[in-house]
């Protein structure tokens, strides 16, 4: 969900950015390491400890064989990422190592992890490193989410057009990896509109007839037929992934030009980080 956090955590342990990581939502596991390796945390702060000593997000540390990394409950943010040197060894399915829970494929046996599962790691020669990501590079997450206008946004009635960008929207408890339902403002179009189903993407904000917008996330369907109010700028998708049920969400308009500019800047920063962190130096 927070792809940016997962990419940085991977870079901190010397992995390719798309190596398989572990994602925890709201609460995390205790992981017993049966071999020495290097791990890094990214995303939310789950009060993680290694054999009792605390390990903050955006840090990488070496672990000895027999060490236990414990993630607690989310203290800040919603999702935490554990990157392990070499990456978790799971097969590539449809070009991805992610788990697709609704389809029960991908990742580790197509399911969430359970106590007792044993995960294999890819072999890699990783120097025993300690690293901390500079504070200036750590993603800052707030509740302001920048939204590129969608094709049907001008069709909102006047009250709804204002409500879309006003305080009052919040993430519903009926939210998951497929999409966030946003409650607090029943949005309406001036008149119903007939739509042909067409592609949607991560960050697409749809308006079903109920008036409760749905913000599509990582496990979104590939096509949709609801009016589209906007698209979250890619650079803010991590912030959305870190929102919890009940959190307020406030949209701020952004132009496509600016959103793409911010994306290019972020990719340049990641490329620089990749050069600095690559093994061997």
């Amino acid at each position, binding site marked *: 969900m927070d792809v940016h956090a997962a990419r940085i955590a991977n870079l901190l342990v010397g992995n390719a950015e798309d190596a398989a990581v572990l994602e925890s939502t709201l609460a995390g596991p205790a992981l017993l390491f049966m071999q020495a390796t290097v791990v890094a945390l990214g995303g939310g702060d789950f009060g993680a400890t290694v054999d009792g000593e605390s390990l903050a997000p955006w840090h990488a540390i070496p672990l000895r064989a027999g060490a236990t990394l414990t993630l607690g409950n989310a203290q800040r943010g919603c999702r935490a990422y554990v990157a392990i040197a070499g990456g978790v060894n799971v097969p590539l*399915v*449809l070009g991805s190592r992610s788990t*697709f829970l*609704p*389809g*029960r*494929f*991908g990742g580790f046996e*197509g399911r969430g992890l359970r106590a007792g599962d044993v995960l294999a790691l890819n072999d890699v020669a990783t120097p025993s490193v300690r690293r901390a990501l500079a504070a200036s590079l750590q993603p800052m997450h707030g509740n302001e989410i920048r939204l*590129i206008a969608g*094709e049907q946004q001008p069709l909102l009635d006047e009250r709804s057009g204002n409500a879309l960008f006003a305080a009052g929207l919040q993430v519903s408890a009926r939210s998951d990896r497929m999409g966030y339902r946003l409650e607090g403002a029943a949005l309406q179009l001036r008149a119903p509109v*007939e739509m*042909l*189903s*067409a*592609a*949607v*993407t991560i*960050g*697409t904000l749809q308006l079903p007839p109920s008036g409760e917008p749905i913000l599509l996330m990582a496990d979104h*369907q*590939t*096509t949709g*037929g609801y009016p589209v109010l906007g*698209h*979250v*700028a*890619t650079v803010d998708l991590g912030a959305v992934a870190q929102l919890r049920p009940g959190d307020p969400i406030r949209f701020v308009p952004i132009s*496509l*030009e600016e*959103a*793409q*500019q911010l*994306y*290019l800047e972020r*990719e340049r920063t990641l490329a620089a980080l990749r050069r600095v962190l690559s093994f061997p130096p």
Partner: protein
Amino acid sequence: MPTGDGAGPPQRDVVVLTEQPPHIVPLGDRALVVQLGDRIDSGVFQRVRATLQRLSGAHPAIIELVAGFASVTVHYDPAIVGGSTVDTPHATLSRALEQRLADFAGAPPLDARVVEIPVCYSGDLAPDLATVGERAGLSTDQVIALHTGARYTVQMIGFTPGFPYLAGLDPRLVTPRRGEPRTRVPAGSVGIGGEQTGIYPMATPGGWNIVGRTPLAIFDSGREPAALLRVGDEVRFAAISRARFDAMASA
């Protein structure tokens, strides 16, 4: 769920060409939509197919192409397109794709695969068969004859992975979606939703009227390609007995 207008069988020998350049609009900051019409018909659909073919591999920044009823969506990486001080990645890529689509007139007629799907139209595998028949004033045998007698075109793959939206349903079988969707429709279920018919690749919630079930795996993540059908395929249904279904399902 989409609505259809009951587009007829594909016109195999005619590719309807664009009279005007396709209209390209952004879909967020990492995708764009090539709009090819505003309705569902076989001419627009042929343009969708020709566009898919024409854009396949057309630019290194393209990650994936997704066919809609009257559009093709292009997912891309703006960092690979790059940007200049003058143009955004969206503007740069749009121009490249417009050029690629400019000489549409040269598009050759497209090959269509014909795929036969065995379906058992009986008992608990077809819970809504009677409803579809009653609505149309037809016996269940007549419904089966009409459903197996038509040729369908895969117009879109969507909803869940591998779900084919098929055009070509006999107008007499048009049946609105169920008022209350089922919370679980078994994998392989063949449904009628409005003017379309389709097959559920995996057990999911669903609101279409279920008239039968196929023992074939419509989607298998371990298979290459994972989806049995692709956009443009011609599909025919063939009725099979329950015994044959059970044998194929357990094979």
